[in-house]
């Protein structure tokens, strides 16, 4: 197991959320992103663009600054 920020996760990579910055918690739990949830990276936009992840079957896009506040455990 390796820890990675969501902003550093590669295309097609999956991981389990291990930590979410306190500032962000109440903003993304409503979108289904919580500690213990499995995320899959499906789109990384260039030039510091947003990332799109799949959580529980739902596509969710996050700005890169938000993605930096989420830590995943990846294989």
């Amino acid at each position, binding site marked *: 197991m390796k820890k990675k920020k969501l902003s550093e996760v590669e295309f097609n990579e999956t991981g389990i959320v291990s930590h979410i910055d306190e500032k962000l918690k*109440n*903003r993304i*739990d*409503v*979108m*289904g992103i919580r500690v213990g949830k499995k995320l899959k990276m499906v789109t990384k936009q260039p030039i510091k663009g947003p990332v799109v992840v799949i*959580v*529980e*079957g*739902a596509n969710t896009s996050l700005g890169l600054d938000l993605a930096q506040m989420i830590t995943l455990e990846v294989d």
Partner: protein
Amino acid sequence: MSILLMGHPNVGKSVFFNRLTGASVTESNYPGTTIDYTKGYMRIGGKSVELIDVPGTFSLNPKDKAEEVAVAMLHESKDVKVICVIDASKIERGLFLALEIIEQGYPVVIALNMWDVARDKHIKINIDDLSRILGVAVVATTAISGEGIKDLVTSLDDARPVEIDNIITNVGGST
């Protein structure tokens, strides 16, 4: 009494609205189409009841203008019942909002909309179990074809507030 259609952006609230009132509110395939609200009237058991199409919101803690409108509408309306519309193919995130509304003491019925999409994706949902756990009516619907709409309207009659503690007990948690 008025009835509020609430749910995430892009789950089909406006299609419901059109179905229930016979209006033709704009529908489009991108989220955030409804940024102001639309009001109409529907008939329940011979009575005319106000129906409000609320902008999509992810939670009751607003993060933008449309969400602010949504939350204010809920809080300002007196004697309301809420139809919480959930995308059945993404049920987990939708239940979060449903629980928030239930927790604030509003009578809720849940429409598991886009049931056809969930079926195509082989997503199986035990509606009876979900309804038992939540203590509110749960109806599978496909708003664009009209499936389940009648059952949903019928279930509104019996909608009552539910204690959130009961739900927590039903899922085996401790309060």
